[in-house]
């Protein structure tokens, strides 16, 4: 007898199941390409186990998003008011469950080689990996699969991007409250399945325990709730949001703490960061015109494999314009940390790193240094919590932990090894004057 459900083993979620029609999406060229896109770029040069790919992460997001959907749409878990507001759920639950699963599966298919590391400066204006994802979902490559699944690709695009990215990209998409909630299940800032999976998976593969949290408990307590009240005379209830029952608050705290630790210990590790910068420098010198193509066929052809082969060739070719950048990665001759944010300098100037970088570049030449400033955004997202008496409260108001989760903010200046000693010595001599912020009293106003 023909098999209609297929199981895929997964180190995080044990089994992930798909139907035969869903497996067509899995087998498409845009999705299979993700087998060759590292989830964490060149992080494996620092944490050797971190060689996992977007392919398995995307499967994991689909698995988790489905579990969240099944919990939050249970009749017993919907309050009376929400039952009447979410007409799409009652009219077409199976359709939207399928769309949600496919949007979760495809939410990353537009990623460039080596994921985030290469994106910002390597695409034309107005392009991001989210826009490429939308183009791929709408493309002929996937049209047959959508037809067999009987779903509208525009619905998949909406849920895969969410209102935040769709609005930023000005794609002209409008979201109903129901579609907004479904997108939040996948890409939500607070409790999205994307975030849950990458923390668990990156933590597992990198071999660091920081990213773990009790996602079973968290998912069981998730609910669709009215938005949290923001001030005394606000009753809340404007719009809907994904939140938790009071009993799930500790699991949600653990998720946001995991995120803090993973950013501070793994994602913002200085050597990982400088490899990202060297990779960007290499790609600018290696790609035609210094940018990735946004043509669908070119995108499908370009993976980490092509970039790695190009990098190895450029390393061997002393005349290649990107030779030095390739060599830094291939031979582990990366720049080293010369300066990093510290409390004393920070008290004088929160942008001390930029000052140090500018001064060193002027003294020794900009090619010897790189500056990396990253303030983590959306560090403390608010979400509604349903109290035992049915009242809705703000998570930030209820939780003393969430209120205190720090934001990660890094400020590194890196130097090449040949300049490190003289630059360090020069900075020691000029440190105090270099980091001073330029006051308008000095005449630059």
């Amino acid at each position, binding site marked *: 007898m023909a098999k209609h459900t297929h199981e895929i083993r997964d180190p995080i979620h044990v089994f992930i199941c798909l139907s035969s029609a869903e497996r067509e999406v899995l087998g498409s060229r845009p999705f299979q390409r993700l087998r060759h896109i590292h989830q964490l770029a060149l992080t494996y040069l620092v944490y050797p186990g971190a060689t996992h790919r977007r392919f398995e992460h995307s499967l994991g997001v689909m698995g988790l998003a489905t579990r969240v959907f099944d919990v939050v749409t249970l009749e017993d878990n919907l309050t009376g008011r929400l039952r009447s507001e979410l007409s799409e759920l009652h009219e077409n639950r199976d359709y939207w469950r399928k769309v949600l699963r496919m949007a979760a599966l495809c939410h990353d298919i537009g990623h460039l080689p080596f994921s985030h590391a290469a994106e910002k400066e390597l695409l034309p204006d107005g392009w991001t990996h989210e826009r490429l994802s939308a183009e791929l979902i709408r493309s002929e490559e996937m049209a047959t699969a959508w037809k067999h699944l009987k779903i509208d690709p525009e619905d998949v695009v909406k849920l895969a991007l969410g*209102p*935040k990215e769709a*609005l*930023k990209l000005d794609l002209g998409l409008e979201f109903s409250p129901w579609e*907004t909630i479904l997108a939040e299940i996948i890409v939500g800032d607070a409790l999205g399945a994307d975030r849950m999976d990458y923390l668990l998976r990156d933590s597992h593969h990198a071999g660091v325990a920081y990213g773990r949290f009790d996602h079973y408990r968290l998912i069981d307590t998730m609910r669709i709730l009215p*938005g*949290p*009240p*923001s*001030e*005394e*005379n*606000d009753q809340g209830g*404007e*719009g809907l949001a994904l939140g938790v029952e009071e009993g799930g608050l500790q699991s949600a705290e653990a998720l946001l703490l995991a995120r803090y630790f993973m950013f501070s210990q793994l994602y913002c590790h200085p050597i990982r960061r400088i490899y990202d910068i060297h990779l960007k420098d290499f790609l600018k010198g290696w790609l035609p015109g210094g940018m990735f193509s946004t043509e669908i066929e070119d995108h499908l052809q370009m993976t980490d494999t092509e970039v790695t082969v190009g990098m190895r060739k450029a390393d061997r070719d002393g005349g290649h314009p990107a030779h030095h950048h390739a060599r830094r990665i291939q031979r582990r001759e990366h720049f080293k940390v010369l300066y990093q944010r510290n409390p004393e300098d*920070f*008290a004088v*100037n*929160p*942008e001390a790193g930029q000052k140090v970088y500018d001064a060193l570049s002027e003294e020794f030449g900009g090619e010897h240094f790189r500056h990396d400033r990253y*303030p*983590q*955004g*959306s*560090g*403390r997202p*608010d979400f509604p919590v349903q*109290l035992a008496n049915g*009242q809705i*409260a*703000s998570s*930030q*108001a*209820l939780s*003393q932990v969430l*209120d205190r989760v*720090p*934001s*990660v*903010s890094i400020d590194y200046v890196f130097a090449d090894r040949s300049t490190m000693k003289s630059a360090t010595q020069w900075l020691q001599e000029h440190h105090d004057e270099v980091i001073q*912020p*330029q*006051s*308008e*009293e000095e005449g630059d*106003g």
Partner: protein
Amino acid sequence: MDRLRKAAVITRLAQSLRERGSWCGETHIQKTTYFLQELLGVPLEFQFILYKHGPFSFDLRDELSALQADELLRPEPHPPYGPKIVTTERAEYIQGLYPKTLAKYQEKIDLVTDRLGPADVATLERLATGLYVTRTAEGVEDAATMEARADELHRLKPHISVEEAGEAIREVDELIEQAQAVAC
């Protein structure tokens, strides 16, 4: 405007809101920054889009997080509601570095916070969306009338009645007149 100057302006705006009795949560800073930038032309360079509760900037949300990481702003809990945002001593130190920038924009900050400081989040949503609708309708003859803008505001935010929308558009027009006086 560079980041520290921008930080000086945003933290001064937050201080000014609190001095006028505002709850001063993220929504209050979002909407008043929208007025400061889009109505009064203070070049803060945030990208605003029409989101769940009116004009909203994800860049500004990230910057508010970054200002907290830089210890220039601090959330003050008020259970069971969302936190108020307060400025720190370090914010005053940063403001002290940019007296000319702040002097240049103080009158504009005062106008926005005098008018919007006492407003609750629902009022801020109505007014900010009213300004958004007005700006979108600029130069489009049929869409620029008061009635047409009120209808559009009601269409975008159905929970705002046509009467409330009309009142919001009238208030926005008053603010535009006042803003033109400050700009002169």
